[in-house]
């Protein structure tokens, strides 16, 4: 058993455990706890990206998700006063039905993944910054520019939405 396999099982277990804690933490229903566990999920998932040799994406995952996005989440959580939310009673029946549907979906997913014959080509690519940059500025130049326009649109939209008097 290679060391990378051990790291896979470690990071996979960490990702799934923290993901479960985001949605169903038995000790706390505070959104701040969920946000912190989401950060842990994202960090351990970037460990999985490193194991898949996607080094650039692992760095971007930590910088953008664990950095920018989660700080935004925490800002908003702090901005809203959510004390009252924790005292809501938990609707067991609807939650149970939802969980049943999700377990069915998960069973179908895992069954189909398990029964498919995946072709076993030896992986050789490296998701290095150079390789991704060459693709991004050559083959995917137009989508890249469109995404930059999308970010501008999102920025203007957010400024418009967060004005004092919203019409």
């Amino acid at each position: 058993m290679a060391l990378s396999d051990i790291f896979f099982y470690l990071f996979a277990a960490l990702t799934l455990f923290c993901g479960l804690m985001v949605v169903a933490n038995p000790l706390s229903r505070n959104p701040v706890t969920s946000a912190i566990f989401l950060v842990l999920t994202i960090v351990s998932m970037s460990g999985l990206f490193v194991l898949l040799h996607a080094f650039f994406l692992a760095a971007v995952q930590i910088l953008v998700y664990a950095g920018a996005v989660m700080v935004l989440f925490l800002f908003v959580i702090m901005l809203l006063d959510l004390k009252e939310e924790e005292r809501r009673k938990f609707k067991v029946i609807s939650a149970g039905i939802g969980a049943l549907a999700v377990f069915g979906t998960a069973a179908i997913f895992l069954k189909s993944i398990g029964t498919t014959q995946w072709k076993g080509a030896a992986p050789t690519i490296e998701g290095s910054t150079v390789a991704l940059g060459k693709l991004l500025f050559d083959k995917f130049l137009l989508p890249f520019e469109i995404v930059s326009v999308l970010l501008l649109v999102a920025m203007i939209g957010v400024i418009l939405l967060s004005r004092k008097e919203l019409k």
Partner: protein
Amino acid sequence: MNLLAASVDLPSLPPVGLQHYLAVSAILFCLGVLGVLVRRNILVMYMSLELMLNASNLALVAFSRFNNNLNGQVMVFFIITVAAAEVAVGLALIVALYRKRQTAHVEDLTTMKL
């Protein structure tokens, strides 16, 4: 990477392949769906959406690695960018909604009128 290739004597689990990563991705996606269905706090529901996006990212990177094709990773890069924009707009909407209604609980938000 010599360190990662070194072998260790441990009880034999199957060697990690594409299906392992896909299984992790599928379970993570289902956890996200569970969060959206079960939790009623709009912020936690939003975090569950992020969880689902991350699960799809993991599947794309795994496919990219095991098919020797970098296009999947470029796709993940775009997904991360769009998700960042989406989070900014979505959270601005939640804040605007909270200013009007003083709640972040979806069961209080059942009418379209402000």
